[in-house]
Structure formats: structure tokens, C-alpha cells
């Protein structure tokens, strides 16, 4: 494992213009992702956690330019992705793939599993037809599916098996980076463990790099080396996995960790910090620190100035005034 940066994201912004509410009004802007920066080293897994609507999935999609970023820079292995033309981008996509959350809607119901996995090879024109077929068989055994299952259609598979097909499809072109957008959240717990183990095994065998998007902190802890916590389109805390769980610094991270129901009884008695209310609207964000409306520590300064993400402790980046 080399400590080389594979993906570098600087000040990424994705803003959407949404429908105007009145006929002559201006179109309001939805700040889905607003100034996100991170690096992922080769062979590492970065976890992106946060509640729904915090922009974690949009970040994942923007990296592959499945949605166009409004501003910012994305360097993949030293190449500026945002300056690429369509053809060059398509060639680039060979090296970066995505696994979606819902294995029911991300597989074409009219294609056989074999065809679905073969599709990326056909599009990128890799090898001869017989080589492609051999590669599909290889991929099927890699993700734990049988050779015979190539001829089946998606509806004949269970949720866990479908997610295996999605993983095989993402692996088809031997990518360097895989964006995993909540790959296990729609699966049952017993199946979740099987898929997580498969992802861990594949990472070790194929030297993959993951951007792992999830709302489940336990899952992220299991698979990731580094974690970035997102809130309302910005990263509020970023550090390695061990430090985050041992010493969460941002009040939001603390609240998020405290909110996860625990199986063990000893944690039950500890006083809980609960964020009040709901996440503010990303169209109409509060001034100052976005979290101050729910934060129990909020002071005057939090309402006035937005804190920057700074390295408060070695290797531990926090966006909070305190």
C-alpha cells in the first residue's frame, strides 16, 4: 500500500437552481454541496457520513461527473477531471466506478445478470467477445455468484445477490476508485455482513480505493480508514477512524454518535446530547455556523461567523469555534 494520493477534491461546490415558487420570482439556489475538500490515498477508504440531505450522495455523484459540479477542482491521479472532454472523461470512467444504494432500481430488469456485468466491457471495448465472456465468469466467481446465474434476470435474485451483481459490474473494468453510495443500507443485517465482508476482501485483493458513503456509523467504522462528517453540504469534522470514535470534537459528531442506539447496557446511563429539531433547509441556510440552530453549546459567535475547517489537533480537522 503506497501512501499516494489518488483522488484530491478541493472546494467542491454543487448548487442546484430549483423551480421558482412564483411566476416572476427568482429561482432559488439549493446548496447541496458547498465547499468540500478531501484527499484519498491509494488503497484507503474514506467514509462520508451524515444525515439525509447533507450532500454526501451528491458529492459522490459529482466526483464521477454524474452531476456537474458548480465550482471546485477534482484531481484523479493528477488529472483534472473537470477540464476533460466527453471522450476523455469516458476513458477516465474506466478507472472510477460506482455502486448505488438500491440494487432493485439500479439493475436493468430486461437484461440478464451476465449482460449487465458485461455492459461496461462492451462500452469500453475491452478485449474480444470471448475474452469478455471469460472476464464475466471470473467476476461472478469473485463476488460469490455461480456461473449458471449469468443467464438469470435481476428479479430472480435476492437483494444481497443483486448487490453482488452491482459490485461485479463496478469491478468489471478493474477500476482504481469505487464510490460506494450506501451499498448496504437497503439490505437485511445478516446480508449486510456478507456484503461488507465481500467489499473488505475485494479491497485487499484488488488494491481498491473506496469512497464509502453511509449514514450508519457502525458500518463506516468497520470498513473505513478515514471519516469525514458532513452537515448541510459542508464537512464539519475529518480525521482517521480511530480518533473520530474515541474523541469526537464537533458537537454534531458527538450528537450523531450519541444518537446511535447501543446494544450494550453501560452506555445507556450516560447523559445524552440531543440535537434539537430538524436539519435546516439547504435552500435557506442559517447564518454563521450551520449547526448553531441545533447545537447545545452555541454562543453569539456561532450565529455571526461561519467556522472554517481547520486542523485543530494533529490530523484532526474540525469546523467549530470552540
Amino acid at each position: 500500500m503506497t501512501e499516494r494520493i489518488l483522488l484530491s477534491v478541493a472546494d467542491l461546490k454543487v448548487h442546484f437552481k430549483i423551480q421558482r415558487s412564483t411566476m416572476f420570482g427568482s429561482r432559488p439556489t439549493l446548496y447541496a454541496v458547498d465547499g468540500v475538500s478531501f484527499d484519498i490515498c491509494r488503497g484507503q477508504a474514506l467514509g462520508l457520513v451524515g444525515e439525509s440531505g447533507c450532500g454526501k450522495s451528491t458529492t459522490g455523484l459529482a466526483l464521477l461527473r454524474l452531476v456537474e459540479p458548480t465550482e471546485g477542482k477534482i484531481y484523479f491521479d493528477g488529472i483534472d477531471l473537470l477540464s476533460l472532454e466527453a471522450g476523455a472523461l469516458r476513458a477516465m470512467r474506466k478507472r472510477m466506478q460506482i455502486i448505488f444504494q438500491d440494487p432493485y432500481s439500479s439493475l436493468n430488469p430486461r437484461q440478464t445478470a451476465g449482460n449487465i456485468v458485461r455492459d461496461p466491457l462492451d462500452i469500453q471495448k475491452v478485449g474480444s467477445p470471448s475474452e469478455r465472456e471469460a472476464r464475466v465468469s471470473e467476476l461472478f466467481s469473485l463476488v460469490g455468484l455461480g456461473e449458471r446465474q449469468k443467464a438469470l434476470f435481476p428479479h430472480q435474485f435476492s437483494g444481497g445477490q443483486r448487490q453482488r451483481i452491482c459490485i461485479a459490474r463496478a469491478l468489471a473494468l478493474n477500476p482504481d476508485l469505487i464510490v460506494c453510495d450506501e451499498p448496504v443500507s437497503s439490505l437485511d443485517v445478516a446480508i449486510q455482513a456478507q456484503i461488507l465482508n465481500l467489499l473488505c476482501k475485494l479491497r485487499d485483493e484488488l488494491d481498491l480505493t473506496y469512497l464509502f458513503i453511509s449514514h450508519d456509523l457502525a458500518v463506516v467504522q468497520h470498513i473505513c480508514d478515514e471519516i469525514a462528517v458532513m452537515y448541510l453540504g459542508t464537512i464539519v469534522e475529518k480525521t482517521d477512524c480511530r480518533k473520530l470514535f474515541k474523541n469526537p470534537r464537533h458537537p454534531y459528531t458527538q450528537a450523531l454518535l450519541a444518537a446511535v442506539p447501543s446494544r450494550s447496557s453501560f452506555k445507556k446511563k450516560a447523559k445524552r446530547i440531543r440535537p434539537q429539531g430538524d436539519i435546516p433547509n439547504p435552500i435557506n441556510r442559517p447564518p454563521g455556523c450551520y449547526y448553531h440552530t441545533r447545537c447545545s453549546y452555541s454562543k453569539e459567535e456561532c450565529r455571526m461567523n461561519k467556522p472554517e475547517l481547520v486542523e485543530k489537533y494533529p490530523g484532526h480537522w474540525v469546523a467549530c469555534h470552540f
Partner: protein
Amino acid sequence: MKNNTLNPEDTVLAVENLCVDFKVKGRLVHILSDISFVLGSGETLGIIGESGCGKSMTALALMRMVPSPPGWISAGRILMNDENLTQVSEKKMRTVRGRKISMIFQEPMTSLNPVYTIGNQIAETIRCHKNRSRSEALEEAVEMLRVVQIPAPERRVREYPHQLSGGMRQRVMIAMALACEPNVLIADEPTTALDVTVQAQIFDLLKEIQETRGTCIILITHDFGAVAEMADRVIVMYAGHKIEEGTVDEVRNDARHPYTQGLLRCMPEIQIDPKGEREPLPEIPGTVPDLLRGLKGCPFSPRCSFAISKCKELPPYLHLGCKRSVKCWLAREDTRLKEPA
């Protein structure tokens, strides 16, 4: 933990040998087989299992809301105040639903009517069961919204479901369910559609309501963390069978059924100070059986690493004490199963 030794007088709800059958493509399918449990006053019972194990169907059966056709309650009794709810008339049942037993569903958006204000919907429940005028019922609805801690209830009562966030909608569902002070509240995955911070808020609310009103809660979930947080006792279900029952501590620390052991092991849990290398999660091989195929013997035996030839027959319940039972041939009273070598 409270109420571990219950007197029979404290029993609010008793379910005895409940079976639910479905007729699918001309074939008889046993969706629930021989489910029994009791619910003591002020108690929270967790029902846990994977999707399709029959936990939601148990809830529907208690409310006599099994979709019919294709399904029906084929055997068993549901006893509440010495009355067998499986036998009473539909008219009588309507006075039970909402008044004695009420239910919160998983998806708050689909279970609220989008074209009526939330105040209207809560007031409707109140007027169904209590003799109230329209304006009195609406006042009570405002009061209920205050109980579930919705800010500015006088204004909110006139709003429509789409104007509320997911957490607020679930609060409205809870308000509606509690409007007629039921003895039993069934919460069917009440927080699955919500974020963790909101989930924690809803759990706090349910606990608080339970303390002030003494409502019994049946919490249906697939998350053992939620059960450990909320419940006193827990039932583990698999393929329509109750395979293990006990207090949360007993099941957590001393699971006797191989499925329960596997289920608890395969859930990743946050470690505050992880030590050493990450190990792969222990898996349960295979998938949940297809009930349509018809099962013989222990439903878990095809996936069980301990399975023996005797598992081709359905095991009886082994009772290990007060409200502690396991459905496995290999379970012993004194020891737990050892890991396979």
C-alpha cells in the same frame, strides 16, 4: 429492567398459539406458526427479525388487520381483558382499534392522508371513540400535539402532512395513536425511515410517554440496538416462528438459539476504542427460506452450522424460566452452544 416477575393480574395482553395462514397460488402457506407471548403492564416488548420473518404480520394479527384474502388467523387466541380478540365481531373490533390497541406504522408519509389537515386526522380518531363535538376534538388534537412536543401546536394543527418533516410526521402518527389512551401501542419499525438523531428523539418521546401514561409498547424492529435501548424483553422471530424469548440482557449476553447468536454477531457495532486489526464480520451463510416452498422441521436448520439429523423435525420450546424460551433441539438448560470447531 423492570417487571421481570409479573403477576397474572398485570398481564395486559396475552397471545396464545397464534397462527396466520395465507393462500398463495392455491397453496397453503404458514406465515405465523404458534406464536405465544404475554405483555405486562407498562412493559416494552421488542420483536426482532429479518424482513419477511413475520414480525409485522404479528402486529397486524393483533389488530385483526391481516389482509384477507389471502390471509386469515387460523388458530390461537389473543386475550385482552378476558376477551378473545380473534372471536369478537368486526363491530366490536372497531372499538378496540385505536382505543385499546393502536399502531404506528413505518412510513409516516404513506400512513397520513395528504388531503386532510393533521388536526382533522387526529380529531377523527378522537370522535370515533369518544363522544366529542368537532371543536372539542380539535382542542384535544392540539393538546395531543403538545404531548408529542410539536412546537406551536395551535398553528401546526391546521397544516397538511407535506408541510411537516419526517420526524414531525412520525410525531403526528404517535399523537394519533395515543389520542384515545390505548393500553397497548404497537410501533412497527417507527424509525426506519428516519435519521439517527431524529430516531433518538422519537425514542426519548416514546419512553417519556410510557412513563407518564403507563402504556405498553410492542416495538417491532430489525435493529437490536433499538431493542436494547427501548425494550425490557425481546422476542426473536425467524420464518414465522418465535425462536427465542427472554429479557434484553438474557438475549444479549446469553443467546441460546444459533440464529440469535449469529444475528447478534453479524451486526457491526461502534467501538469507542477499537483494538487490534479489523476482523471480518461473522456471517450467517445463505438466505432466509422461502415460505412458499413449505418448510419441514426447524426453519433455520438449512443455514445452521450446528444442525443434526433431528433438526428435520420441528423442535419444541425449551422453557428456561420465567418467560424465557428457546426453540432448538440443541438448547440445554445449563449451557449455551459452543462455537463450531
